[in-house]
């Protein structure tokens, strides 16, 4: 009986049924609390804070907002302040202080349409450089904000005049290993993945994976960019090795088909950047491990360096519900603890064991 039980196990620790549609759930750093963001049936937004106590999730605070809230991140706030930046259905970006939720600390009308995705970098003691927030919206633009600058975005990636715009479904920061370097990766609904370099204010790389891109994430935000995972509709995800960029071929990638449905989220384990979990539209979670190839780059026929993609192996999978699991967040403090929420109006706290061995 040793081999099935020496694999990492995904154990559902707490399951809490909510009375609203929950879109995002995030751990509050350095605590055993998490935030749930969503919208009530009456069309107003809701922000709830839960604490994990004695095997139960206790509601600590609940506040209702005017517009439904789609996504949130703690990535750009410092550890003492722990402000959450949220994007809502109306295109507004707010930053809230969780102690005083009546008035936002920072607010701006970021986009004309719903903010689909948000990410933050520079806070929480991770990475160097200014704290910045990037938002991607259905109006096809990706904007980078600095909480110290009001109203105007620090960078704006918008379609050229006259171009038909495509919805931006996901954004992620990466390559933030010193004060100046930053990269933003954006995924669109027509399968485009674009990598923008904020230091040069230019497009660094783009590709098209044929199916709408649901989620992109770098394995670490604060290092020289190492790996990028992009998930899409129809159950496919691609892992790009971003250490070596070829002038024409771009990045090497390996792709895997799993889940039989849209893969909604991918999240890397904060403690081990080669392990990541994907959440699928059939309510299942797959835990993967990336293995590097013997040589990460080789010379091609022209003598230019081209990357070599490794391989991905499935460590464990678990089916938690029948509805899609739309959001997933690992706890940065305890290895293996994660919170996930799905469209069955439930938020679950999971424990993944034996991640040291894997």
């Amino acid at each position, binding site marked *: *009986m040793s081999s099935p*039980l020496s694999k990492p*196990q995904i*154990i559902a*620790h707490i399951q809490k049924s909510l009375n609203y549609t929950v879109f995002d759930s995030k751990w509050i750093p*350095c*605590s*055993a609390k998490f935030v749930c963001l969503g919208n009530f049936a009456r069309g107003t937004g809701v922000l709830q804070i839960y604490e*994990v*106590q*004695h*095997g139960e999730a206790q509601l600590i605070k609940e506040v209702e907002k005017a517009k439904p809230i789609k996504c949130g991140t703690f990535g750009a706030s410092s*550890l*003492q302040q722990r402000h959450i930046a949220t994007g809502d259905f109306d295109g507004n970006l707010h930053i809230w202080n969780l102690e005083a939720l009546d008035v936002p600390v920072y607010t701006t009308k970021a986009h004309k349409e719903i903010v689909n995705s948000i990410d933050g970098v*520079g806070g929480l*003691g991770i990475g160097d*450089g*200014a*704290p*910045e927030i990037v938002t991607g919206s259905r109006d*096809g633009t990706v904007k*980078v904000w*600095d909480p*110290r*600058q009001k109203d*105007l*975005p*620090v*960078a*704006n*990636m*918008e*379609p*050229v005049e006259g*171009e038909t*715009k*495509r919805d931006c479904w996901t954004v992620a920061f990466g390559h933030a290993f010193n004060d*100046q370097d930053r990269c933003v990766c954006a995924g669109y*609904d*027509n*399968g*485009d993945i*674009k990598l923008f370099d*904020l230091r040069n*204010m*230019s*497009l660094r790389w*783009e590709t*098209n994976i*044929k*199916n*709408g891109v649901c989620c992109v994430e770098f394995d670490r935000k604060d290092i020289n960019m190492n790996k990028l995972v992009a998930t899409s*509709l*129809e159950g496919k995800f691609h892992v790009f090795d971003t250490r070596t960029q070829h002038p024409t071929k771009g990045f090497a990638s390996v792709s895997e088909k799993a889940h039989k449905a849209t893969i909604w989220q991918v999240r890397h384990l904060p403690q081990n950047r080669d392990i990541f979990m994907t959440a699928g539209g059939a309510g299942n979670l797959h835990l993967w491990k990336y293995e590097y190839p013997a040589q990460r780059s080789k010379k091609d026929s022209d003598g230019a360096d081209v990357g070599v993609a490794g391989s991905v192996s499935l460590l464990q999978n678990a089916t938690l519900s029948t509805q899609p699991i739309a959001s997933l967040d690992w706890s940065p*403090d*305890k290895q*293996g*603890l994660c919170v996930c929420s799905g469209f069955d109006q439930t938020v679950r706290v999971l*424990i993944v*064991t034996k991640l040291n061995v894997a």
Partner: protein
Amino acid sequence: MPLHVTDYTWTQTDSTVHISVPLKGATAAGVDIVSTEEYLKVHFPPFLFEAFLFEPIDDDRSSAKVGNGVAVFTLPKKTHKVWEHLMITTDDKETKKEIRARALLTQEQKLSAELKQKAEKRQAEKKYALETMMKLEKVERDRIQQMKDAEREKTTAELAAWQLRQKQEAEKAQQNQNHQIQQNPDTKTPGSRQTDIRKNKQVHSDAEKKKKKKIRAQLPPPRTCGNIPVTFTPRVFPTALRESRVPEEEEWLKKQAEARRAMSAELEELEDLTEEERNPDWLKQKGDKCFSNGDYVGAVNAYTLGIRLNRKLPALYSNRAACHLKLRNLHKAIEDSSKALDLLTPAVSANAAARVRARVRRGSAFCQLELYTEGLQDYEAALKIEPHNEALQRDAQIIRDIIQGSAEQNGTQ
């Protein structure tokens, strides 16, 4: 008729009767014995021994030994009495028949009872086997479940312990902060809190790095504003992969590519033509120019030459159909537009406009030939491709009215 055995011998005690029947050479396997309480029959063809017993015997305890050319029966009596005779002394056939029938019946019942018992026993044994199997499996399952539960409890206990540690450390940090504020208020306090919290994260234990973070007072200024223009991948067909009719669309593109490349092999006749005149596209343009100038015959010639060079361009057929319409060569128009429609399969959105045009031309040709129903069919097909075209709708309505008008006419006549 079986032969009755009469040279049997019998002895008795108070409690048992012994009968010995010679087998006359029959094997033990060929002997059929029926015994009940009051009747004993031994049948070894062609011999038969029947005994209508004087008194009833205990059938369950009776036994028979068959072997060595003789069958020996040991029949314990029900009532301990000495019998005068072995058999009842009656020659009444009826009684004998009755006794025989009764005996056979009892025999049957006994046999069926035995069968039932055997079946029940088998059933019971199977059930028992099943139950033991289930018990074993249950034990196995419980063991695995226990291991899982133990794992879960261990992790939840760890979680609780970690939370407790967090709380304690937060309190300690708070106390430290209070102390430090009392001692000397300087910018070191956020640094020390950071260091305490960092211990939990196990990320950096490097003392130098901590110092660097304490010293770094200012964050870098906000980035200077920049704008990056974005273009999206042009898709030939802007639908998602799962919605796209990729196989048909690929087929259409391939056909088009082939059509461009197809060149006729009849080069001897065409040697006096110039380079230009051998290019079907150029010929098509020439034809279009003639058409717009009103030179329909010239246009037909140009298209015909183009078709000779390249039989696979639907545009040439379709345009030639339009010329024929103008020249009122209606049958030829119908032929050409049919050929064009054949070439325009598979039906995709890219060739929708061309298909509509071909249908309209064929439809008008039919109407001019007064084949209104066929014409209406074509117009309705065109409407299906382009439902919002008002001119098409009007024309279709006109044709419908004509059809109805002629039907009435025929009816009244």
